[in-house]
């Protein structure tokens, strides 16, 4: 279990904000940190890892003090025993996959463990390859495998799937889920992808401008805005054409062009390029599997 109560001023594009988090995280949780870029979610992850130092506060994990500004305690990252998967994976380019894992192994006598993890992650066949020649998904797997070599207390994932395409993303989401189940390892994932939050985590912190504005299960946090009886999509007006007594408005919504009919009063305030909300109240949208 981790108690974290920290604050740190952050210099972002929107000016200086104060990252302030006072929470408890339970053992075995899969927590996602969700928010826009610049909200402080990656910084929070780096603070937990010991890569950044908060201005004040405490971090206590299983009774062990990792950080306490009043007692001037700040455990270095080497002593925290966490696993961290970087956005760029940070595989050592001059070492093969096996050497990367071997380097991470605290006790060189346990080399059996390398083969075990290689097998669990299904990357035995990549063992002798250099990271340069791996695909994004393979790199991500090796990065996770490498963190597992130290038996970490906690797995910290900094948007590890953001660089991957859709299908690979889904597959690796499943794999992260499996690893979490298998090792029972407390995991914290930074993401700005709602589907990732739903597929992986049992708890989500929604972070905005340095504050945790929501803390609950994914369905509770996103209940109000995304899962509602109404159907709504944000779009952009591409054109407005007169057709007999009606007007046809072309709207770009999520890369699709949608044609919507409108009457004169509807378009009175509309200009091309305006952002608009497309919504439907009375009619149920049709679901078709593709």
């Amino acid at each position, binding site marked *: 279990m981790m108690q974290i109560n920290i604050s740190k001023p952050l210099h972002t594009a929107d000016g200086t904000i104060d990252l302030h988090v006072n929470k408890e995280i339970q053992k075995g949780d899969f927590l996602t940190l969700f928010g826009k870029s610049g909200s402080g979610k990656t910084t929070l992850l780096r603070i937990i890892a010991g890569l950044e130092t908060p201005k004040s506060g405490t971090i206590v994990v299983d009774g062990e003090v990792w950080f306490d500004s009043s007692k001037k305690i700040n455990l270095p990252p*080497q002593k925290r025993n966490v*696993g961290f998967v970087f956005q760029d994976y*940070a595989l050592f380019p001059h070492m093969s996959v096996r050497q990367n894992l071997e380097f991470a192994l605290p006790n060189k006598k346990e080399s059996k463990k390398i083969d075990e993890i290689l097998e669990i992650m299904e990357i035995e066949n990549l063992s002798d390859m250099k990271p*340069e020649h791996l695909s994004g998904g393979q790199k991500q797997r090796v990065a996770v495998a490498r963190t597992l070599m130290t038996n970490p207390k906690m797995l910290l994932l900094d948007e590890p799937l953001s660089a991957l395409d859709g299908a690979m993303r889904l597959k690796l989401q499943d794999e992260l889920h499996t690893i979490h189940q298998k090792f029972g390892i407390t995991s914290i994932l930074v993401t700005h992808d709602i589907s990732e939050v739903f597929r992986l985590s049992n708890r989500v912190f929604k972070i905005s401008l340095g504050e945790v504005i929501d803390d609950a299960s994914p369905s509770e946090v996103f209940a109000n805005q995304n899962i509602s009886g109404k159907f709504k999509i944000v779009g952009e007006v591409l054109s407005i054409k007169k057709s007999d007594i009606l007007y046809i408005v072309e709207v770009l919504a999520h890369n699709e062009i949608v044609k919507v009919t409108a009457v004169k009063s509807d378009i009175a305030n509309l200009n091309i390029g305006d952002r608009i909300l497309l919504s439907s109240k009375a009619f149920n949208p049709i679901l078709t599997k593709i």
Partner: protein
Amino acid sequence: MDTEFLQTMALTFKLAFITTVILLFIGIPLGYFLSQTRSRLKPALEAIVSMPLVLPPSVLGFYLLLAFSPKNGFGAWLDESFDLRLVFSFEGLVLASIIFSLPFMVHPIQSGFSALGKSLKEASYILGKSRLQTLWFVLLPNIRPSLLTASVITFAHTVGEFGVVLMIGGNIAGETKVASIAIYDEVESLNYDLANQYALSLFVISFAILLFVYAVNKSMLRSEFR
């Protein structure tokens, strides 16, 4: 070939070799520090390291001459405490060369370290590796091309230096007379053939060294990421 020619060439390369080895030990920590530090003193330190690039070698040589002179405080102290006379001696040449070639060693190493993403270092720390282990096993292997470039450029630059050597080393055969001084000396005494022999040797050797750097760096980069 006469013995003095061989002696002078050998001295030239001995000076360059010793200077390069010592500078490698100075350049790695210094370049690493400069690439990592966020201290306010960084610009000042960078300026000091780079001074030999812009300063006329004779200026540097002049001040070193003053500093090392046994007539002055520092030189007298060295003489009394360590029996070390740095003016017109090989040891003095080595020290002067180290100062004069410092930027040629530090700059490539510093930019090599800077070009490595900070996540490599952080990943190693998180895996429990100390700073020294990280430097040795993770960072240095990944800047090998920079290390090679730095060493060879430093070597070549030390071979080619003239002003500093002339000021502080003088022209003592077998002790401080290096090839670039010898060329000047032979031309002064209208001995063009010998001057040409020195000049051509330096020309060929410098070209060979640079050719080696570019060829090896290319193949090293290739094999590194195979």
